[in-house]
Structures are given as structure tokens and as C-alpha cells.
């Protein structure tokens, strides 16, 4: 099990849980839930920015770019 900020490009992951992470406020975690992050949901890593500070992911059939540090609160395992 890893956190989503450590994920590799083009791989698909399954969310296994959420954890408290530094710099991730309640509002951000709530926003993730609103956007469809849910235990058991699949996330595909599509691309990263040059310095890996932003990830482009596919979730629930749409594309989302998220600052990598925020994804430290999402625990995933490879599918």
C-alpha cells in the first residue's frame, strides 16, 4: 500500500483508504470526496508535470489535475 503522491505514470490504482496528511486541510479532503474519491474506486495515473508537482488522473470517467502533495492523504494499492 502506498499513498497516491508516490504513484507511477500509466498505472491504475485502487483507493484503500484516507489518512491525515501534512498540509491537507479538511476542506481539501472533503473536496476529494465530492469529486468521487471513495474507498474501492479506481484511479488511473495519466501524466505528471515536469517536476511531478501535479498529477493528471482519471477518476469516475473524467480527468482531474491535482497538486501531488495533496494526494498524500489518499492510500492506494496497485490494481
Amino acid at each position: 500500500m502506498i499513498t497516491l503522491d508516490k504513484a507511477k505514470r500509466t498505472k491504475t490504482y485502487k483507493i484503500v483508504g484516507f489518512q491525515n496528511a501534512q498540509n491537507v486541510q479538511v476542506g481539501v479532503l472533503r473536496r476529494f470526496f465530492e469529486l468521487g474519491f471513495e474507498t474501492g474506486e479506481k484511479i488511473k495515473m495519466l501524466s505528471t508535470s515536469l517536476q511531478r508537482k501535479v498529477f493528471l488522473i482519471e477518476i469516475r470517467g473524467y480527468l482531474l489535475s491535482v497538486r501531488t502533495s495533496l494526494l498524500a492523504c489518499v492510500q492506494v494499492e496497485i490494481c
Partner: protein
Amino acid sequence: MLDVLLVGNPNSGKTTLFNALTKSNEHIGNWHGVTVENKEKIFVFGAEEIRLIDTPGIYSLCPLSFEEKVAVEKIESGAYDKIINLCDQNNLQRNLYLTLCLIEKGCDVVLAINEMDKKPIFKVDCKKLSEQLGINVVSINAEKRINLEELNKCLTKTCNAHKLPYLSKLSGDFGQFSGENDYFKIKAYEKDSTFFEKHNLDVQKIFASVPKDSMQMLSKWRYDFVSQLLSTCAKRTNQTYGKSKFDTVALNKWLAFPIFFLLLAGIFYLTFFSLGAFLSNLLGDLLQVLTKPMLTFLEKSFSSSWIFDLFNVAIFGGVGTVLSFLPQIVLLFLFLSILEDSGYMSRIAFLFEDIFGKIGLSGKSIYTLLMGFGCSTTAIMTARNMDDKNAKRKTAILCPYMSCSAKIPIYTVIGGAFFGANNIFCIMGLYVLGVIVAIIISKILDKTVLKSQTQTFILEFPPYRMTSPKRIGKILWQNVKIFLTKVGSVMICMNIIVWILSSFSFSFSYVQNEGGTSMLETIGKIFSPIFAPIGLDNWAIVAALLSGLVAKEVVVSSIALFNGIDASATKLISQSVLLPTSLVYFASKASVLSFLTFCLLYTPCIASVSMLLQEIGKKWTAICIAIQLLTAYIVAFVVYNITLAFEVFGFGSVCVALFTLCVVVVAILTIIRKTRKGKCCANCSTCGAKCKK
């Protein structure tokens, strides 16, 4: 009167629907956060007057950014009769999440499903969905204005939404609030502290009464219910919303930035030098043909020379000069709008997040800054889509450094007169200089008074879309209208004021006939010593700069008023349209560069300042103006003296001197860095100043 709120996810087509229903022309774009404030307009349907209020996009009733707060506050206020919840048919699952939030709150909702593409991802049975939710559901196409009458009919019908089944699962000890409606419990589950603080309630006590993972539980219930709904009411294809093969190129780490910069260079080249210049010259010729007989008529009609001068100089001369730039300004807005509509902006924000993060901005700032190349006033407002207050302030402060379209006449007329065909490099250089100065200012602000907190860059990728010919026509017409209104109001008024001040003395004698010093010359001469160190110690230039505080286009028309520009000239923009008399205003090419630099960086127009006041408050607007004036002066001073040195000592000598200076600066910085290294980490001899051990 029926008050109706238009609510939906970002980029679901709310403003397109608003424009269609109210026959308005509000700004739209393929980007999350184009609408940043509530907009309202009344329209009539049958016998009913409907006040439609367009709100910024939201994902739920828990706001994260400033513009979301505007929309949620409006919904929370309850000051409306109905809500149109617009859902994007291609992303129905997430859009219906918001619908559930609205039903939970007890809002009277009409669900409008917007068909944005020919091959949608979801095919919905609206009748079944309506039965399941107990609300009116109607399928529409906002862009093509299909089924809008059906939607309007739904507004006059009353519906009672079914109670959502998962609400019975809400548990917890809410004490005295047990009898309250479900919305109170939902807010507790969502851990929305702002909501409870607003009602002066003990947040900690309430949060302790709900399960620890209540937020996750609630969102799971909602998504499970949406999935259940869609399994019976909709069919889904396997497409991914927003995914495109072009992204493999547009986001490629080697190609992404060259593509972006090439695109930008192409836009500026077409605007300033090829298509834009051709159209400008064409319009110039047309204006000349039109104004000549009018001037002949005026000359014959008025015996008094000052009345003829007023029309000839202030109106036809001053305004005419700026009017010929209409094609270039409109073209720039058109290209920016096409860029905005294409969906490429989100990709640019993604690419720039790395770089912008280092200077304390968000990748989303790129939208505001790029829009700043069009008009700073409207661009400043878009800074609202930042989540961090300091990032919002910084973005708004930096926006005026992006050279706005109003400065195009200054660069082309003044620069063209002195640099001829080489003006292309001068203009490009000015644009780049504005960006460089903005980066430096941002870095300084980030290290001092506006330190950025952790920003929440979460941005959806919209699909790529082509701009329709109808939309191109609308953009062109809208911008022509705005420009002509500005020319017809502000420009004419300002030119008449400047002409009166420059033609009459304080004793109200007409200086052209009776001689003496005009009011403007007297005022200009008071301020000109301040501008002497930057090579602009001429009263006319100072007066032009002062008049530019109202609108930047007035700078050029003011110089035209002082008999500086041949308004009837229709030469190529790379050639001079300045009359020889005006050459004395600028002592040398160094003065011209200094003038252009100062124009690029000094205080923006009065409309931008008032927008800054609205967005960042009095204190930060005052700071912003002070920074801009100081920066403009310092940079103009540096540009003036370096250019002067090139003229006096020659290119080689100055290059050697500048190289030596750079070496010295680098050496000093290295020494400082090494000294700090020792202080930073005593136990480690290998790390740098930013040691993380």
C-alpha cells in the same frame, strides 16, 4: 416576479444558458471559474416575469474558493423561489452529486440536463429520472437554445422532491438540535465549520457527535444513490470525459512548453504584424477618406479657428489615431477567446503549476495573467478562483504587468517611429519584460508580505472544443462594441479635456493664436524634473503619461493632440507616423525605450484601479500602485541608462561591463550562500542553504 437561481458544476454551461434565456452576452469560456460573481437579469416568459441569477460553479454546498463562496452564500440566503440546476450530460455522475445536495437542503429544484456534444457519454431518460427524484427534469441544449421553452414551463410548476433514502442513515447525538431538519445533520456530517460558526454554535461539540469518517460516509451514500439512479435512468458509453489524443503532445515534457510559446508568439505576430497591421492600415485609409470631407466642411463652416482645431485635433486627430488600432485590439481578444474556448487553458495551468508554485502563485493564475494581455480590468476579477487569499492578491497585483491591449497603440506608434521594422523586437521585448518584472515582484512578495499558504490546485480537464463561427462573430462584435463605446465616451471626453488644457492658458487665452504657456505645459513642467533621470524631462511626455492614468489609449492621442502624430498618415506601422515636431519630445532612442518601459509598468487605467479596490481592498491597492510606480521608475531608469551607455560607449564596451557586473553579482551571491550554509546547518557540511535535514 419569480426569482430563479442558476446553479451547477463549473463549466456545465450555466452562463451559456443564462445568455440564451435572458438574451445577454455575458462572458463564457471552456474553463472552470469563468463566472466569478452573481449576475442577474429579468426576462419575460408568458405572463411571468423571471429574474434569473447566474452563479459561479460549485461542486457542493461547502465552498473552497472565493467564487464558490459567492454562490453558496446566495443559495444559503434562501432569497429566491426556484433553482435551475444545470448538469453536464457528459459528466452526469458528479453533476448529480450537487443535485442531491440541493434537494437535501430543501430547495425547489428544476433539473436541466445540458446536451453539450453530439455523442454524449450518458444517454438519459429524463422521465424516469424525474419519477425517481420527484423533481422536474428536462433535457436542453443551452448553446443551440433547444427545449428552453420546456425549461421555462417547468419553472412555473411546483414539485415536491422525494425524501432521499440515505438520509435515514444519519445518526448522532445532536442534543437540542435533534428536532432540526436533516440539513443541519448533513452539515455536521460534512464537518462544515463555517456553517456552524455562522450560527454561533459549538463546532467541536457537534462534530464529536457524528462518526469520525462522516464526510466519507455521506459522500459514499450520495454517490451510491447516484449510481443506483443512473443504472435505471441512463446508459453510459466507455468514453472518458475530457480525454484527448492531442494531450500526449500538448502535455509532453519536451514539447509542451515550445508548443505553448510558439502559440503565443503566433498570436502576437498575427495581431501586431501581419493580419492586424494589414487591417489597421486598411481602417486608417478608410478613416482618412471619411474624415477629409468632414474636415473641409467644418473649416468652411466655422470662422473661429479654435472650434475647427477642437474637431480637427481633439476628435479626428486624437481619437482617429487610436481608432485605427481597432482591428489589432479586437484580434487579440479574439485569439485569447479562442484559446479560452479550446480547453487548452487547463492544460497550460497544469504545465505552469510547477513554475508558478516556486514564485508563490498557483497554476490557475495563468488564466488571469493571460487574460491580462487582453484587458487588465476584467482579468483582475478572475483571480477569485484562487483558494489562497495571498495568491489571489498576488495574482491581482501582477495582472497589470501583463501588457494590456490598450498599450498596443503606444508601442506601435511611438516604437514604430523610432525603430522602424525592428519594432517587432521592441514590442516582443516589452511583453517579455512585463512578464520578467511580474516574476521578480511575485518572488519578492512571496518572500516578504504575501507568503503563500499551501495551495489546493485541483482542476478539472475539460474536453477540447472548437469555437463555432457564430461564437467568433459574437466575440468580434462584442469587442468592437466595447472599444467603440470606450472611444466614443472616455476617449472623446479625455481628448477634449487634454485639448482644452493644452490649448488655453490659465488666463483662458488661446495659445495657438495669442501665444503664451498652456495650462498643461505649466503643469507638465512642474513634474518634468522628476522624470529627468529617466530621460523624459519634456512637459508633453509627462502630460501624456498623466492623461494615461485615465485610459492607456489616451497616451498616444495626447501626443497626437500636441501635434505629434499625423492622424491622417496611413503608412505601415513599422514606419513613422510621428510628425518631425514630435521627435523633439524624445531626446534619443534611449528616451523612447524608457518611455515605453514606463508605459508598460506604471499604474494601470482608472477602471483597473477600481477593480483592484473591489478585489483586494484599499490597503493592497495603495501598495500595488506604489509598487507599480516604483518599479516603472526603477526599470525605466535602468533601461534608459543601459541604452544610453550603448549609444555613448558602443556595444562591445557595455557588454564587457555588463558581463563583469554579472560575474561580481554571482560571486557576491555565492559568498553569501556559503556563509548562510554554515549558519543553516552546523552539523552538515554537504548541504546547501535550503537544507532539509
